[in-house]
Protein backbone atom coordinates (compact mmCIF):
# COMPACT_ATOMS: atom_id res chain seq x y z
CA UNK A 1 0.00 0.00 0.00
CA UNK A 2 1.28 3.45 -0.86
CA UNK A 3 -0.47 5.20 2.00
CA UNK A 4 -0.47 8.94 2.46
CA UNK A 5 1.39 9.59 -0.76
CA UNK A 6 -1.24 7.85 -2.83
CA UNK A 7 -3.23 10.99 -3.62
CA UNK A 8 -0.19 12.83 -4.95
CA UNK A 9 0.94 9.78 -6.87
CA UNK A 10 -2.44 9.32 -8.44
CA UNK A 11 -2.71 12.96 -9.41
CA UNK A 12 0.70 12.87 -11.02
CA UNK A 13 -0.16 9.71 -12.91
CA UNK A 14 -3.38 11.25 -14.11
CA UNK A 15 -1.34 14.18 -15.35
CA UNK A 16 0.82 11.89 -17.45
CA UNK A 17 3.72 11.26 -15.08
CA UNK A 18 5.06 7.89 -16.09
CA UNK A 19 7.09 7.45 -12.91
CA UNK A 20 4.02 7.96 -10.76
CA UNK A 21 2.11 5.49 -12.83
CA UNK A 22 4.94 2.98 -12.47
CA UNK A 23 4.70 3.43 -8.72
CA UNK A 24 1.03 2.53 -8.83
CA UNK A 25 1.77 -0.44 -11.04
CA UNK A 26 4.51 -1.84 -8.81
CA UNK A 27 2.36 -1.46 -5.76
CA UNK A 28 -0.67 -3.31 -7.11
CA UNK A 29 0.69 -5.67 -9.72
CA UNK A 30 1.96 -8.44 -7.38
CA UNK A 31 -1.36 -8.76 -5.59
CA UNK A 32 -3.22 -8.51 -8.86
CA UNK A 33 -1.18 -11.26 -10.47
CA UNK A 34 -1.54 -13.57 -7.49
CA UNK A 35 -5.27 -13.00 -7.39
CA UNK A 36 -5.54 -13.74 -11.08
CA UNK A 37 -3.44 -16.88 -10.71
CA UNK A 38 -6.11 -18.14 -8.33
CA UNK A 39 -9.14 -17.38 -10.49
CA UNK A 40 -7.90 -17.89 -14.06
CA UNK A 41 -5.25 -19.90 -15.86
CA UNK A 42 -4.49 -16.89 -18.12
CA UNK A 43 -3.34 -14.61 -15.34
CA UNK A 44 -0.64 -12.77 -17.27
CA UNK A 45 -2.83 -11.96 -20.25
CA UNK A 46 -5.73 -10.88 -18.08
CA UNK A 47 -3.41 -8.70 -16.01
CA UNK A 48 -2.21 -6.96 -19.16
CA UNK A 49 -5.76 -6.32 -20.32
CA UNK A 50 -6.64 -5.05 -16.89
CA UNK A 51 -3.86 -2.49 -16.93
CA UNK A 52 -4.78 -1.35 -20.41
CA UNK A 53 -8.26 -0.62 -19.18
CA UNK A 54 -6.87 1.11 -16.11
CA UNK A 55 -4.74 3.32 -18.32
CA UNK A 56 -7.81 4.29 -20.32
CA UNK A 57 -9.90 5.08 -17.30
CA UNK A 58 -7.24 6.59 -15.09
CA UNK A 59 -7.86 10.25 -16.03
CA UNK A 60 -11.47 9.96 -14.93
CA UNK A 61 -10.89 8.03 -11.72
CA UNK A 62 -11.76 9.75 -8.45
CA UNK A 63 -11.18 8.24 -5.04
CA UNK A 64 -8.65 7.06 -2.52
CA UNK A 65 -6.30 4.13 -2.47
CA UNK A 66 -8.86 1.57 -1.38
CA UNK A 67 -11.26 2.76 -4.04
CA UNK A 68 -8.49 2.54 -6.60
CA UNK A 69 -7.72 -1.02 -5.63
CA UNK A 70 -11.37 -1.98 -5.62
CA UNK A 71 -11.77 -0.47 -9.08
CA UNK A 72 -8.74 -2.26 -10.41
CA UNK A 73 -9.68 -5.67 -9.00
CA UNK A 74 -13.21 -5.25 -10.30
CA UNK A 75 -11.79 -4.71 -13.78
CA UNK A 76 -9.53 -7.71 -13.34
CA UNK A 77 -12.40 -9.95 -12.34
CA UNK A 78 -14.47 -8.87 -15.33
CA UNK A 79 -11.59 -9.50 -17.67
CA UNK A 80 -11.04 -12.91 -16.10
CA UNK A 81 -14.68 -13.79 -16.61
CA UNK A 82 -14.43 -12.68 -20.24
CA UNK A 83 -11.32 -14.78 -20.70
CA UNK A 84 -13.09 -17.77 -19.23
CA UNK A 85 -16.01 -17.37 -21.62
CA UNK A 86 -13.69 -17.00 -24.55
CA UNK A 87 -11.77 -20.06 -23.48
CA UNK A 88 -14.92 -22.12 -23.16
CA UNK A 89 -16.02 -21.04 -26.66
CA UNK A 90 -12.69 -22.02 -28.16
CA UNK A 91 -12.55 -25.36 -26.43
CA UNK A 92 -14.20 -28.45 -27.85
CA UNK A 93 -14.13 -30.14 -24.48
CA UNK A 94 -17.59 -30.67 -22.98
CA UNK A 95 -18.62 -28.23 -20.31
CA UNK A 96 -18.52 -30.77 -17.50
CA UNK A 97 -14.98 -31.74 -18.37
CA UNK A 98 -14.00 -28.08 -18.63
CA UNK A 99 -15.27 -27.40 -15.14
CA UNK A 100 -13.25 -30.31 -13.91
CA UNK A 101 -10.15 -28.92 -15.58
CA UNK A 102 -10.76 -25.46 -14.23
CA UNK A 103 -11.03 -26.74 -10.73
CA UNK A 104 -7.57 -26.39 -9.25
CA UNK A 105 -5.97 -29.66 -8.42
CA UNK A 106 -4.83 -30.23 -4.89
CA UNK A 107 -1.07 -30.08 -4.73
CA UNK A 108 0.79 -33.11 -3.66
CA UNK A 109 1.49 -32.84 0.04
CA UNK A 110 5.03 -34.08 -0.27
CA UNK A 111 5.73 -31.66 -3.07
CA UNK A 112 4.45 -28.79 -1.01
CA UNK A 113 6.44 -29.89 1.97
CA UNK A 114 9.63 -29.73 -0.03
CA UNK A 115 9.02 -26.12 -0.88
CA UNK A 116 9.66 -23.32 1.46
CA UNK A 117 6.90 -20.95 2.39
CA UNK A 118 6.87 -19.12 -0.86
CA UNK A 119 4.21 -17.06 -2.50
CA UNK A 120 3.81 -19.61 -5.19
CA UNK A 121 3.25 -22.44 -2.77
CA UNK A 122 0.67 -20.51 -0.85
CA UNK A 123 -1.13 -19.58 -4.02
CA UNK A 124 -1.12 -23.23 -5.00
CA UNK A 125 -2.56 -24.13 -1.64
CA UNK A 126 -5.27 -21.51 -1.86
CA UNK A 127 -6.23 -22.79 -5.29
CA UNK A 128 -7.23 -26.03 -3.67
CA UNK A 129 -10.02 -24.25 -1.84
CA UNK A 130 -13.42 -23.84 -3.39
CA UNK A 131 -13.35 -21.06 -5.95
CA UNK A 132 -15.51 -18.71 -3.92
CA UNK A 133 -13.44 -19.19 -0.77
CA UNK A 134 -10.16 -18.74 -2.59
CA UNK A 135 -11.32 -15.56 -4.30
CA UNK A 136 -12.58 -13.99 -1.10
CA UNK A 137 -9.34 -14.78 0.72
CA UNK A 138 -7.33 -13.22 -2.05
CA UNK A 139 -9.46 -10.09 -2.18
CA UNK A 140 -9.61 -9.64 1.58
CA UNK A 141 -6.10 -10.60 2.53
CA UNK A 142 -3.92 -10.08 -0.54
CA UNK A 143 -5.67 -7.17 -2.21
CA UNK A 144 -6.49 -5.63 1.15
CA UNK A 145 -10.07 -4.73 0.26
CA UNK A 146 -12.78 -4.11 2.80
CA UNK A 147 -15.64 -6.58 3.19
CA UNK A 148 -18.04 -4.15 1.55
CA UNK A 149 -15.83 -3.78 -1.53
CA UNK A 150 -15.37 -7.53 -1.80
CA UNK A 151 -19.11 -7.98 -1.44
CA UNK A 152 -19.71 -5.66 -4.38
CA UNK A 153 -17.14 -7.48 -6.49
CA UNK A 154 -18.36 -11.01 -5.85
CA UNK A 155 -22.02 -10.16 -5.54
CA UNK A 156 -22.57 -11.07 -1.91
CA UNK A 157 -23.47 -9.24 1.26
CA UNK A 158 -20.67 -8.03 3.52
CA UNK A 159 -21.83 -10.43 6.23
CA UNK A 160 -21.66 -13.37 3.85
CA UNK A 161 -18.19 -12.28 2.78
CA UNK A 162 -17.04 -12.16 6.40
CA UNK A 163 -18.42 -15.61 7.18
CA UNK A 164 -16.97 -17.08 4.01
CA UNK A 165 -13.57 -15.56 4.73
CA UNK A 166 -13.51 -17.11 8.18
CA UNK A 167 -14.44 -20.52 6.84
CA UNK A 168 -11.88 -20.25 4.10
CA UNK A 169 -9.11 -19.34 6.54
CA UNK A 170 -9.94 -22.24 8.80
CA UNK A 171 -9.93 -24.57 5.83
CA UNK A 172 -6.63 -23.14 4.67
CA UNK A 173 -5.08 -23.73 8.06
CA UNK A 174 -6.21 -27.33 7.88
CA UNK A 175 -4.68 -27.80 4.45
CA UNK A 176 -1.45 -26.15 5.48
CA UNK A 177 -1.20 -28.36 8.53
CA UNK A 178 -1.69 -31.46 6.40
CA UNK A 179 0.73 -30.34 3.76
CA UNK A 180 3.26 -29.18 6.25
CA UNK A 181 3.65 -25.88 4.50
CA UNK A 182 3.80 -24.00 7.74
CA UNK A 183 6.41 -26.19 9.33
Amino acid at each position, binding site marked *: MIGAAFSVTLTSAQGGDETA*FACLFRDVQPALLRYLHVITPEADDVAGETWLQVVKGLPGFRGGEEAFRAWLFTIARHRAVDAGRSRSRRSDVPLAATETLDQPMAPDAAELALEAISTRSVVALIKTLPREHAEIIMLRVVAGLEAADVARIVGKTPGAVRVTAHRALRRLAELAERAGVTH
Partner: protein
Amino acid sequence: MPGFPFPGRPGGEHDEPLLDMIIARHVLPPDAPQPMHDLARMLAALAGPAEPGELAGEAAVRAAFNRASSPAGISATARHAGRRRRVRGPARSRARLATALVVAVAGLGSVFAAYIDVLPGPIQQLAHVTVAAPPPPSAKPPRSVTGRTAAATRPADRHSSQPVPRQDASPSPAPVAGQGTPTPNLKLGASRSPGQRVTGPSCGPGPVRSPGPQPKASGHPSPSSWPPGYHCTGLPSGPSALPTLNPYVPLTGTRGR
Protein backbone atom coordinates in the same frame (compact mmCIF):
# COMPACT_ATOMS: atom_id res chain seq x y z
CA MET B 1 -2.45 -29.35 16.20
CA PRO B 2 -4.07 -29.11 19.58
CA GLY B 3 -6.08 -26.07 20.47
CA PHE B 4 -6.75 -24.90 16.88
CA PRO B 5 -10.44 -24.19 16.49
CA PHE B 6 -11.62 -25.86 13.29
CA PRO B 7 -15.14 -25.38 12.10
CA GLY B 8 -17.58 -27.85 13.46
CA ARG B 9 -15.47 -28.41 16.49
CA PRO B 10 -16.54 -27.06 19.86
CA GLY B 11 -15.21 -23.56 20.35
CA GLY B 12 -14.88 -22.94 16.62
CA GLU B 13 -16.49 -19.54 16.87
CA HIS B 14 -13.99 -18.24 19.36
CA ASP B 15 -11.27 -17.80 16.77
CA GLU B 16 -13.12 -15.11 14.88
CA PRO B 17 -11.34 -12.16 16.46
CA LEU B 18 -8.02 -13.77 15.62
CA LEU B 19 -9.12 -14.44 12.07
CA ASP B 20 -10.21 -10.83 11.73
CA MET B 21 -6.79 -9.75 12.94
CA ILE B 22 -5.14 -11.97 10.36
CA ILE B 23 -7.27 -10.53 7.61
CA ALA B 24 -6.50 -7.01 8.76
CA ARG B 25 -2.79 -7.90 8.87
CA HIS B 26 -2.51 -7.04 12.50
CA VAL B 27 0.07 -8.60 14.77
CA LEU B 28 -1.42 -11.45 16.74
CA PRO B 29 -1.11 -11.55 20.50
CA PRO B 30 1.68 -13.82 21.73
CA ASP B 31 -0.75 -16.10 23.48
CA ALA B 32 -2.62 -16.90 20.25
CA PRO B 33 -2.58 -20.53 19.13
CA GLN B 34 0.40 -21.53 17.04
CA PRO B 35 -1.73 -22.47 14.03
CA MET B 36 -2.97 -18.91 13.97
CA HIS B 37 0.57 -17.65 13.90
CA ASP B 38 1.43 -20.05 11.11
CA LEU B 39 -1.58 -18.95 9.10
CA ALA B 40 -0.71 -15.31 9.61
CA ARG B 41 2.87 -15.93 8.48
CA MET B 42 1.66 -17.76 5.39
CA LEU B 43 -0.71 -14.99 4.37
CA ALA B 44 1.89 -12.34 5.06
CA ALA B 45 4.14 -14.11 2.58
CA LEU B 46 1.27 -14.08 0.11
CA ALA B 47 0.88 -10.32 0.46
CA GLY B 48 4.60 -9.70 0.33
CA PRO B 49 6.63 -7.74 -2.17
CA ALA B 50 6.94 -8.61 -5.80
CA GLU B 51 8.82 -11.73 -6.73
CA PRO B 52 10.99 -12.06 -9.83
CA GLY B 53 8.88 -12.12 -12.95
CA GLU B 54 5.82 -10.54 -11.44
CA LEU B 55 6.72 -7.13 -12.81
CA ALA B 56 7.65 -8.44 -16.24
CA GLY B 57 4.76 -6.67 -17.90
CA GLU B 58 5.77 -3.24 -16.64
CA ALA B 59 7.43 -2.16 -19.88
CA ALA B 60 4.37 -2.94 -21.96
CA VAL B 61 2.04 -1.24 -19.52
CA ARG B 62 4.24 1.85 -19.37
CA ALA B 63 4.29 1.99 -23.15
CA ALA B 64 0.52 1.85 -23.18
CA PHE B 65 0.44 4.59 -20.57
CA ASN B 66 2.74 6.77 -22.68
CA ARG B 67 0.60 6.27 -25.74
CA ALA B 68 -2.50 7.22 -23.80
CA SER B 69 -0.78 10.20 -22.20
CA SER B 70 0.47 11.69 -25.46
CA PRO B 71 -1.61 14.64 -26.66
CA ALA B 72 -3.64 12.70 -29.17
CA GLY B 73 -2.88 9.26 -27.82
CA ILE B 74 -1.67 8.37 -31.28
CA SER B 75 1.47 8.40 -33.36
CA ALA B 76 3.17 11.50 -34.70
CA THR B 77 1.92 10.80 -38.21
CA ALA B 78 -1.61 10.54 -37.00
CA ARG B 79 -1.14 13.74 -34.99
CA HIS B 80 -0.05 15.54 -38.17
CA ALA B 81 -3.03 14.17 -40.00
CA GLY B 82 -5.25 15.39 -37.22
CA ARG B 83 -3.68 18.81 -37.46
CA ARG B 84 -4.33 18.87 -41.18
CA ARG B 85 -7.89 17.92 -40.53
CA ARG B 86 -8.21 20.68 -37.97
CA VAL B 87 -6.81 23.21 -40.46
CA ARG B 88 -8.95 21.94 -43.27
CA GLY B 89 -12.12 22.08 -41.26
CA PRO B 90 -12.53 25.89 -40.99
CA ALA B 91 -11.50 26.37 -44.62
CA ARG B 92 -14.19 23.97 -45.71
CA SER B 93 -16.75 25.72 -43.60
CA ARG B 94 -15.68 29.08 -45.01
CA ALA B 95 -16.16 27.76 -48.53
CA ARG B 96 -19.60 26.51 -47.59
CA LEU B 97 -20.45 29.87 -46.09
CA ALA B 98 -19.24 31.73 -49.16
CA THR B 99 -21.25 29.44 -51.41
CA ALA B 100 -24.32 29.96 -49.31
CA LEU B 101 -23.85 33.71 -49.45
CA VAL B 102 -23.45 33.67 -53.21
CA VAL B 103 -26.54 31.55 -53.61
CA ALA B 104 -28.50 33.78 -51.27
CA VAL B 105 -27.41 36.97 -53.06
CA ALA B 106 -28.18 35.45 -56.45
CA GLY B 107 -31.59 34.32 -55.27
CA LEU B 108 -32.48 37.66 -53.76
CA GLY B 109 -31.20 39.43 -56.83
CA SER B 110 -33.28 37.24 -59.08
CA VAL B 111 -36.38 37.87 -57.00
CA PHE B 112 -35.70 41.58 -57.03
CA ALA B 113 -35.18 41.54 -60.77
CA ALA B 114 -38.39 39.62 -61.18
CA TYR B 115 -40.31 42.18 -59.18
CA ILE B 116 -38.95 45.10 -61.15
CA ASP B 117 -39.84 43.23 -64.32
CA VAL B 118 -36.50 43.19 -66.05
CA LEU B 119 -36.11 39.47 -66.56
CA PRO B 120 -36.53 37.82 -69.96
CA GLY B 121 -40.04 36.69 -70.70
CA PRO B 122 -39.86 32.98 -69.89
CA ILE B 123 -37.95 33.59 -66.72
CA GLN B 124 -40.28 36.38 -65.75
CA GLN B 125 -43.21 34.04 -66.39
CA LEU B 126 -41.57 31.46 -64.15
CA ALA B 127 -41.04 34.07 -61.49
CA HIS B 128 -44.64 35.12 -61.85
CA VAL B 129 -45.76 31.59 -61.22
CA THR B 130 -43.34 30.83 -58.41
CA VAL B 131 -42.85 34.04 -56.46
CA ALA B 132 -45.88 36.03 -57.59
CA ALA B 133 -43.77 38.49 -59.49
CA PRO B 134 -45.42 40.63 -62.12
CA PRO B 135 -46.26 38.66 -65.21
CA PRO B 136 -44.10 39.00 -68.26
CA PRO B 137 -45.12 41.75 -70.65
CA SER B 138 -46.61 39.33 -73.14
CA ALA B 139 -48.85 37.89 -70.45
CA LYS B 140 -49.95 41.24 -69.10
CA PRO B 141 -53.19 42.80 -70.13
CA PRO B 142 -52.71 45.47 -72.75
CA ARG B 143 -52.28 48.71 -70.98
CA SER B 144 -52.99 52.04 -72.43
CA VAL B 145 -49.90 53.96 -73.19
CA THR B 146 -50.29 57.19 -71.37
CA GLY B 147 -47.62 59.14 -73.01
CA ARG B 148 -44.32 59.19 -74.62
CA THR B 149 -42.49 59.01 -71.39
CA ALA B 150 -44.34 55.92 -70.31
CA ALA B 151 -43.87 54.36 -73.65
CA ALA B 152 -40.20 55.16 -73.65
CA THR B 153 -39.76 53.29 -70.39
CA ARG B 154 -41.09 50.10 -71.89
CA PRO B 155 -38.29 47.91 -73.04
CA ALA B 156 -40.06 46.85 -76.17
CA ASP B 157 -40.89 50.41 -77.01
CA ARG B 158 -37.32 51.38 -76.75
CA HIS B 159 -36.68 49.02 -79.62
CA SER B 160 -39.25 50.63 -81.78
CA SER B 161 -38.02 52.87 -84.54
CA GLN B 162 -41.44 54.25 -85.23
CA PRO B 163 -43.06 57.19 -83.54
CA VAL B 164 -45.12 56.31 -80.59
CA PRO B 165 -48.76 57.10 -80.97
CA ARG B 166 -50.19 59.41 -78.40
CA GLN B 167 -52.95 58.16 -76.25
CA ASP B 168 -55.34 59.75 -73.89
CA ALA B 169 -53.78 60.46 -70.62
CA SER B 170 -56.75 59.27 -68.69
CA PRO B 171 -57.15 55.65 -68.06
CA SER B 172 -59.89 54.10 -70.03
CA PRO B 173 -62.51 52.55 -67.83
CA ALA B 174 -64.10 49.79 -69.82
CA PRO B 175 -64.76 51.51 -73.08
CA VAL B 176 -67.73 50.60 -75.11
CA ALA B 177 -66.96 48.54 -78.11
CA GLY B 178 -66.48 50.71 -81.15
CA GLN B 179 -66.35 53.95 -79.18
CA GLY B 180 -63.59 53.59 -76.68
CA THR B 181 -60.03 54.15 -77.18
CA PRO B 182 -58.40 51.04 -78.31
CA THR B 183 -55.15 50.20 -76.78
CA PRO B 184 -52.77 49.19 -79.43
CA ASN B 185 -50.53 46.44 -78.63
CA LEU B 186 -47.24 48.15 -78.90
CA LYS B 187 -45.39 45.55 -77.01
CA LEU B 188 -43.17 43.40 -79.03
CA GLY B 189 -42.49 39.86 -78.24
CA ALA B 190 -40.23 39.66 -75.26
CA SER B 191 -38.19 37.00 -76.88
CA ARG B 192 -37.70 38.85 -80.08
CA SER B 193 -34.14 39.39 -80.91
CA PRO B 194 -32.83 42.62 -82.40
CA GLY B 195 -33.33 42.68 -86.11
CA GLN B 196 -36.19 40.28 -86.07
CA ARG B 197 -39.13 41.43 -88.11
CA VAL B 198 -42.43 41.99 -86.51
CA THR B 199 -44.88 39.56 -87.93
CA GLY B 200 -47.94 41.64 -87.42
CA PRO B 201 -48.99 45.18 -86.93
CA SER B 202 -48.86 46.40 -83.41
CA CYS B 203 -51.20 49.20 -84.03
CA GLY B 204 -53.85 49.30 -86.68
CA PRO B 205 -56.41 47.15 -88.28
CA GLY B 206 -55.99 43.56 -88.93
CA PRO B 207 -55.19 40.65 -86.82
CA VAL B 208 -53.12 41.38 -83.84
CA ARG B 209 -50.82 38.74 -82.66
CA SER B 210 -51.15 38.19 -79.04
CA PRO B 211 -48.74 35.54 -77.83
CA GLY B 212 -49.91 35.59 -74.29
CA PRO B 213 -53.24 35.00 -72.72
CA GLN B 214 -55.46 37.98 -72.47
CA PRO B 215 -56.52 38.87 -68.99
CA LYS B 216 -60.16 38.97 -68.25
CA ALA B 217 -62.04 41.85 -66.68
CA SER B 218 -59.12 44.15 -67.01
CA GLY B 219 -61.15 46.99 -68.40
CA HIS B 220 -59.32 46.92 -71.68
CA PRO B 221 -60.83 45.70 -74.88
CA SER B 222 -59.27 42.77 -76.44
CA PRO B 223 -57.79 43.32 -79.89
CA SER B 224 -60.34 41.09 -81.46
CA SER B 225 -63.09 43.43 -80.36
CA TRP B 226 -61.59 46.39 -82.04
CA PRO B 227 -63.72 47.72 -84.81
CA PRO B 228 -62.32 47.77 -88.29
CA GLY B 229 -60.93 51.00 -89.49
CA TYR B 230 -60.11 52.33 -86.08
CA HIS B 231 -57.42 54.85 -85.59
CA CYS B 232 -55.08 55.55 -82.78
CA THR B 233 -56.01 58.49 -80.69
CA GLY B 234 -53.98 61.57 -81.21
CA LEU B 235 -52.83 60.59 -84.67
CA PRO B 236 -54.18 61.72 -87.98
CA SER B 237 -57.31 59.84 -88.70
CA GLY B 238 -57.81 57.63 -91.67
CA PRO B 239 -56.12 54.54 -92.75
CA SER B 240 -53.54 56.43 -94.72
CA ALA B 241 -52.67 58.58 -91.79
CA LEU B 242 -51.93 55.76 -89.44
CA PRO B 243 -48.54 55.85 -87.95
CA THR B 244 -46.26 53.80 -89.99
CA LEU B 245 -45.62 51.04 -87.61
CA ASN B 246 -44.21 48.99 -90.35
CA PRO B 247 -43.79 45.58 -88.97
CA TYR B 248 -41.13 44.76 -91.45
CA VAL B 249 -38.82 47.51 -90.44
CA PRO B 250 -35.93 46.16 -88.47
CA LEU B 251 -36.18 47.36 -84.92
CA THR B 252 -32.60 48.19 -84.44
CA GLY B 253 -30.62 51.26 -83.82
CA THR B 254 -33.15 52.87 -81.55
CA ARG B 255 -31.49 52.17 -78.27
CA GLY B 256 -30.26 55.10 -76.40
CA ARG B 257 -32.47 57.40 -78.24
